[in-house]
């Protein structure tokens, strides 16, 4: 792997998806971002770490780029008294919020960035307190502080007024604040303010042994617990250079596809409901409930939390996940497939529903590309990335995945992608259940595992989940079982800013529908 025009010393990490890591200096930091953009690569994540050790070591800012032939992870150590690094939000606009979050957590800044407002720090802890710094005690608390006002961007002009929504929303959904500037019922501008769910997850990771981190990763965003747990375990297994048995990766993929189906089913129902078609909600919610109940029966948890563990999976080796159990999975897929076909034809032929869906919340392919849209929403806007297709690991390699692809970029296209992804996942689940390899489904890591770096990438239902991990020796001297740094990246970082564009020119009452069609995570990026 290389970047045109740059001499980088990259070292491959032992991961199932090609990934190289290397150091750059400040000049190459921006040059690399430009080179990536020019050759059609994407920024996946940006985060900071404190690698100071007494007199040595530095703060480090890191970026992970998705390239055609794999991923490049670049570290820029901030030497001397330097606390700044070159801003790359001019190249990848969505980097802005990640840079602001890094400033809040570590006190290192993107130099000359246009927007330096705090992102995660709402005033609940002092501005000079940087929770991810080494010297900061994880137990430090600041009681009784009041939150600060946030300087939203104001739109001026005749007849323009603001609608403030949140953080507590009308429905049963996650909290965040939306500031609409509107004329009549038409949206001129939306500004999001997130971070309400910031739970200090990254600091919390540093208090857990590496062998326990998958549990926390699985709770970064509960609707993607399988994807996060897998990405974390992939990262840890890459740091430990641990090979998992074939059966384990098949079972992981089986659970990942079940998670994808569950979420798409729920959201398709909710989309119907947001367009005043509650029939859809009732029907899809029944399908989803049946789906989750079978998860519970066969895997032991409705969302399969904590079922992916370092070295493999923690699901029954025989009953209930024996031949008759697997046959039930197949039978359920057949039933759900019939129902989904039926419901799809009802959705497609419902004039009122289609009237709300078509051309609503449109993100055309050029805009999607420019803003870095990712995940299934990108596949509805003419961008065909899907890790299961681009870098198929087992069992996707053996089974082949056909990615959904549409170009119109509206609510209707996102609904179509979801329908198609359900059907493809049902096919995959059937194949996985009938071709599941025999043998071990878990390897036990040695007592002494190597310290070092690891990374994991998984195509969750919403998009790419990425985990970067740095492992060291624990205080008890146990090699390789201490998390020095764990950064979990949610694709919602990329897609939230796109939502701000998607609603422009739409009417306020269509916002819930547009929002639901993306269904972005709050908890995931708030961390």
């Amino acid at each position: 792997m290389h970047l045109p025009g740059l001499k980088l010393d990259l070292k491959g990490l032992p991961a199932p998806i090609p990934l190289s890591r290397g150091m750059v200096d400040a000049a190459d930091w921006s040059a690399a971002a430009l080179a990536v953009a020019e050759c059609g690569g994407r920024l996946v994540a940006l985060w900071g770490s404190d690698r100071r050790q007494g007199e040595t070591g530095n703060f480090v800012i890191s970026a992970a780029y998705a390239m055609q032939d794999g991923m490049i992870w670049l570290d820029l150590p901030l030497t001397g008294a330097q606390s700044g690094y070159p801003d790359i939000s001019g190249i990848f606009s969505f980097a802005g919020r990640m840079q602001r979050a890094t400033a809040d957590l570590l006190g290192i800044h993107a130099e000359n960035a246009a927007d330096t407002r705090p992102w995660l720090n709402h005033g609940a802890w002092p501005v000079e307190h940087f929770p991810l710094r080494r010297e900061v005690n994880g137990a430090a608390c600041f009681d009784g502080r009041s939150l600060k006002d946030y300087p939203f961007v104001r739109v001026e002009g005749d007849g323009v007024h603001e609608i403030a929504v949140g953080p507590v929303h009308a429905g049963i959904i996650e909290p965040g604040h939306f500031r609409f500037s509107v004329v009549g019922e038409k949206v001129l501008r939306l500004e999001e303010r997130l971070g309400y769910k910031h739970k200090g997850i990254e600091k919390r990771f540093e208090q857990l042994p590496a062998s326990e981190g998958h549990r926390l990763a699985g709770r970064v965003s509960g609707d993607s617990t399988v994807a996060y747990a897998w990405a974390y375990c992939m990262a840890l297994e890459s740091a430990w250079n641990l090979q998992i048995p074939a059966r384990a990766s098949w079972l992981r993929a089986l659970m990942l596809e079940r998670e994808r189906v569950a979420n798409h089913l729920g959201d398709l129902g909710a989309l119907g409901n947001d367009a005043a078609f509650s029939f859809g909600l009732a029907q899809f919610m029944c399908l989803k409930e049946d789906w989750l109940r079978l998860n519970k029966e066969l895997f032991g948890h409705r969302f399969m939390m904590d079922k992916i563990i370092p070295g493999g999976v923690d699901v029954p080796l025989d009953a209930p996940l024996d031949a008759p159990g697997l046959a039930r999975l197949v039978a359920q897929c057949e039933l759900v497939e019939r129902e989904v076909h039926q419901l799809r034809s009802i959705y497609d032929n419902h004039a009122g529903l289609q009237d709300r869906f078509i051309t609503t919340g449109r993100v055309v392919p050029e805009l999607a590309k420019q803003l870095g849209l990712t995940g299934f929403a990108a596949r509805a806007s003419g961008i065909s990335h899907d890790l299961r297709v681009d870098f198929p690991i087992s069992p996707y390699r053996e089974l082949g995945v056909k990615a959904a692809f549409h170009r119109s970029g509206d609510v209707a296209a996102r609904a179509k992608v979801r329908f198609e992804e359900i059907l493809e996942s049902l096919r995959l689940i059937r194949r996985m259940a009938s071709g599941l390899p025999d043998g071990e489904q878990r390897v036990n890591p040695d007592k002494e595992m190597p310290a070092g770096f690891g990374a994991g990438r998984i195509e969750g239902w919403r998009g790419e989940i990425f985990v970067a991990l740095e492992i060291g020796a624990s205080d008890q001297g146990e090699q390789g079982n201490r998390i020095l740094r764990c950064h979990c990246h949610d694709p919602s970082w990329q897609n939230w800013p796109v939502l701000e564009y998607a609603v422009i020119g739409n009417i306020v009452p269509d916002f819930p529908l547009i929002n639901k069609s993306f269904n972005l995570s709050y908890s995931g990026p708030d961390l």
Partner: protein
Amino acid sequence: MWKILRQIARNGIRTEPAPQADPDFQSETQRIHQDILDILGQALTIREVDAGSCNGCELEIHAVNNPYYNLEGFGIKFVASPRHADMLLVTGPVSRNMAMALKRTYDAMPAPKLVVAIGDCGRDGGIFGESYACLGGVAKVIPVDLTIPGCPPEPIEILKGILTAVRYGQKKSPR
């Protein structure tokens, strides 16, 4: 239209028999409904607040609203405003960034303000604990009547908890 009707007819009624409320009273749908009427003199309305959950608990609260559990059949309804709510269902370890919004939501409710904390996080912060960013449980911010543990608690547990809180609320209410 006939396709929709056929689909509805084909799927039939999925609602299951009601669970029994804890700890030890036996009740049927009718009886629970009566309880709610006796205690509140009206249907039970619930406002949900996510105070920093991972969204897992929300998924199960959504599930409680699906036809299997038939919540509205008991006269229980989720509402958009705390001013219309008899009960507050709160999830999450209470992130410090949400503490004020949670408190204000609680303040906006009319008495008798039943509060149910959902999940291990709502109980004591769960895996996220207490830190610079989390308060570590709903009771740190507002008085809690009942906690439903689990990660996340299953819909049937949430439903049982809601019914139990209504019962428990009867004891604390002035009537």
